């Protein structure tokens, strides 16, 4: 079953623009993670936001968490071509599994 799910299959922006990827999840969580996967690489964790946090930043990245609506967002400001990747949200399950959404493909055009 899909415990975490991004709300868009694909997004496209031009360099310098801002973009937001949204995610919804189905269970109570202790933390939610955002990952980025570039072509030919494994996923790389971008931000881990705990259930008692509402917002977390990492450079040009900002994640929000709304436990009441079971949703999260990842915003990227001043996008660059190298931000082109698939972005996943992920939540934890039993026995420390991580359940990933299907991912949102972000394309940043020059």
């Amino acid at each position, binding site marked *: 079953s899909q415990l975490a799910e991004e709300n868009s299959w694909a997004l496209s922006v031009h360099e310098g623009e801002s973009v937001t990827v949204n995610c919804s999840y189905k269970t109570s969580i*202790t933390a939610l993670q955002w990952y980025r996967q570039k072509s*030919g690489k*494994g996923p790389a964790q971008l931000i*881990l936001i*705990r259930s008692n946090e509402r917002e977390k930043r990492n450079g040009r990245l900002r994640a929000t968490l709304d436990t009441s609506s079971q949703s999260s967002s990842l915003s990227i400001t001043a996008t660059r071509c190298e931000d082109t990747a698939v972005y996943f949200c992920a939540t934890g399950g039993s*026995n*420390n599994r991580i359940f*990933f959404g299907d991912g949102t493909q972000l394309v940043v055009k020059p």
Partner: protein
Amino acid sequence: NAGVIQTPRHKVTGKGQEATLWCEPISGHSAVFWYRQTIVQGLEFLTYFRNQAPIDDSGMPKERFSAQMPNQSHSTLKIQSTQPQDSAVYLCASSLGPGTTNTEVFFGKGTRLTVV
């Protein structure tokens, strides 16, 4: 820190042959995970070791898949009698602590297995 190292990066096997995939976790990490990634299924959990002990293998297809961690520096995923549906990218990951939901998890680049 070279990160999580997976070898080989690409492997092609004939249907019915055996495939062994290797993973070297980050030194000092106590948790090691294996995931499988396909276009259709996305990222699927396979198995999890903590301090070399198998903790959860509920994602492993039971009959042909096995995973071991004989020492803290490497883990193997073995697939016997490979089938075309086993074609996927197999990802290994490690984390410092046991709780992946609250700790940073590092993934390797993966092994792309193609069964022909």
